[in-house]
């Protein structure tokens, strides 16, 4: 029996085999879509760049060299240098760590929070549902970026506060999705079986409802990552996100603003990094949606 047969077995012998088989099917379906392969490759490159930054980056991210100020792109400096003689290519590479940290932390804070609020609200219904969804709706009908700005203004500028502010404004969408999913499965027979067997609400929600919400959550989170990157870069651009000398892409664009008319590369290069990474998340998210949620195929 080959590994492939074992993965695609119709009657898996263990829970582990079943989930491995499912992962294999999803991956195989993703591989058939060239755009999602491209998206996956971009994310992979981002991960590798962030992990290997100390070895890849040809120069230091913060080391200044005032004799090499504002040099145009060349063989020695692929993306040119900025106003303090720092190599922009190296800074973009180091910046990938910051971007990845922001994206991961926002996802880790807001997705579980949204899942929990949505599942509780959908499972219990009644007043809990009305109150929680009322709060969610209010957050949803407010402009995200403005709210994030106001939160950061109150908390004080900095990358941690930027992450908190973005997470605060992005959980409501996940709560909506989790609630919708919970409503469709809350009265399923297997849930009633668990309840009959004496499973309390916590056990039902955590072990039997949340796992079923994860696939739609993964799609949503991946698609939202582009927006998170843009918001974080925007906060950095305004000067409320990562503070200098951190090589955050948005903050780098903001520094390059002064030189945009004569030294165009200072501001444009980090922008390309933002666009490529955001596009990567969009492609991967689109592909994941087609695979995991065939209902909405071709909708966008």
């Amino acid at each position, binding site marked *: 029996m080959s590994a492939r047969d074992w993965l695609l077995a119709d009657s898996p012998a263990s829970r582990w085999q079943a989930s491995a088989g499912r992962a294999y099917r999803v991956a195989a379906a993703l591989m058939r879509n060239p755009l999602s392969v491209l998206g996956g490759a971009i994310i992979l490159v981002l991960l590798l760049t962030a992990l290997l930054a100390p070895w890849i980056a040809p120069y230091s991210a913060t080391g200044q060299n005032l004799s090499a100020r504002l040099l145009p792109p060349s063989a020695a400096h692929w993306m040119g240098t900025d106003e303090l003689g720092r190599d922009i290519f190296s800074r973009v590479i180091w910046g990938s760590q910051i971007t990845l940290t922001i994206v991961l932390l926002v996802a880790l804070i807001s997705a579980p929070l949204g899942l929990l609020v949505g599942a509780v609200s959908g499972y219990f219904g009644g007043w809990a549902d009305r109150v929680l969804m009322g709060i969610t709706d209010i957050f949803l009908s407010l402009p995200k970026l403005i709210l994030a*700005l106001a939160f950061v203004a109150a908390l004080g500028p900095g990358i941690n506060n930027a992450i908190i502010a973005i997470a605060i404004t992005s959980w409501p969408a996940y709560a909506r999705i989790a609630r919708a999913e919970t409503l469709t499965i809350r009265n399923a027979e297997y849930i009633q079986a668990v309840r009959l067997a004496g499973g309390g609400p916590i056990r039902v929600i955590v072990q039997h409802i949340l796992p079923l919400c994860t696939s739609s959550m993964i799609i949503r989170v991946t698609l939202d990552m582009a927006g998170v990157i843009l918001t974080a870069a925007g906060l950095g*651009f305004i000067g409320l996100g990562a503070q200098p000398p951190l090589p955050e892409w948005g903050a780098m664009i903001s520094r390059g603003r002064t030189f945009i008319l004569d030294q165009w590369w200072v501001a444009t290069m980090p922008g390309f990094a933002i666009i490529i990474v955001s596009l990567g998340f969009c492609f991967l998210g689109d592909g994941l949606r087609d695979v995991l949620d065939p209902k909405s195929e071709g909708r966008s």
Partner: protein
Amino acid sequence: MVEAKCEGSSLRKRVILRCQVLVSIEGFFVNLEQPTAAATPLPGSSGRRLRRGAGTALSFAVTLFLTFIGLLAITFFIGRVIPIDPVLAVVGDRATQAVYDAAKAEMGLDQPLPAQFLNYVGKVLTGDLGRSVSTGRPVIEDLSRFFPATFEMATLGILIGVALGVPLGVTAAARQGSWLDQAIRVVGLLGYSVPAFWLGLVGLAVFYARLRWVGGPGRLDIFYDGLVSPVTGMILIDSLLAGETDIFLNAVTHLVLPASVLGFFSLAYIARMTRSFMLDQLSQEFVITARVKGVPERVVIWRHAFNPIRVPLITVIGLSYAGLLEGSVMIETVFSWPGIGNYLTTALLNADMNAVLGSTLVIGAVFIVINKVSDVLYRLLDPRAR
């Protein structure tokens, strides 16, 4: 916000789809040219319709009210609760205890939180948003001076977005799978992945610095500045009212770039949504019927398929318009545009909380109103909901 819409609309779409299958069979005999007109109301008496209308109005008012209270609660929370001590922020940390207590009492911070909140709501309702630390004027006065510039830019942006986005989306759907469809898809995705402020900067570098096609940052060239007395606050209208054509033309060259950048983002979103609505319609049976009957393809697309999607498109355009007001925050910083976004960012950097919260309130309120109104319009205009 968009997320909620998508989720809601997918449900709504399912209902619509089901109705349309019925309608299209009926429409086959009754009225082929106007598929929407053939949408006879599903079982339901006029009494029920009336009750539903009243219910809609009431629930609209209630949700609008609650959302406003929510917005106020959030700004209140940000302003009074998050800073460790708002009194210290005002008097400084070297003030004596007596000064501190006096300031605290004067700011109303010695009262319990609910009382403070009621006080705050009352103040906001009477238009008192406090005084801006950096300009020294009442925030409400500043906002009314800065808002028209933003409004002007966002309105031109949405006009560009609709004028280009809707035809692009329709074309993409009509030629699904062609290279044109792919190109429009890429434009749509770029709208989600290009930072607005970056596009603005690149636009300035290319079209202003290199090509000299457009005016630079600001609303007017310096030597035209202040020549037209503000009536509406919108420079295009004011200069025409004053009969100053060259100022009008100058304002256009300054406005066209930021508005186009905003327009690009609404175009991307509108084209994407138009395409998916059109694909839904083009797979309907009444479209096949029309094609079989020999109706020219242009008429099939622009009348049979396009007419039914006008209603959901209104919602999309409304959402996109609200989004532009938000997006203008970034754009205005880049273009030194004296709008509400620029005011907000300046206030943010000066820790001018009254101005920050005032701008947040105004942008939030406009956002909410546009949102809810487009939602209500959807229900009012959709023949199936009547």
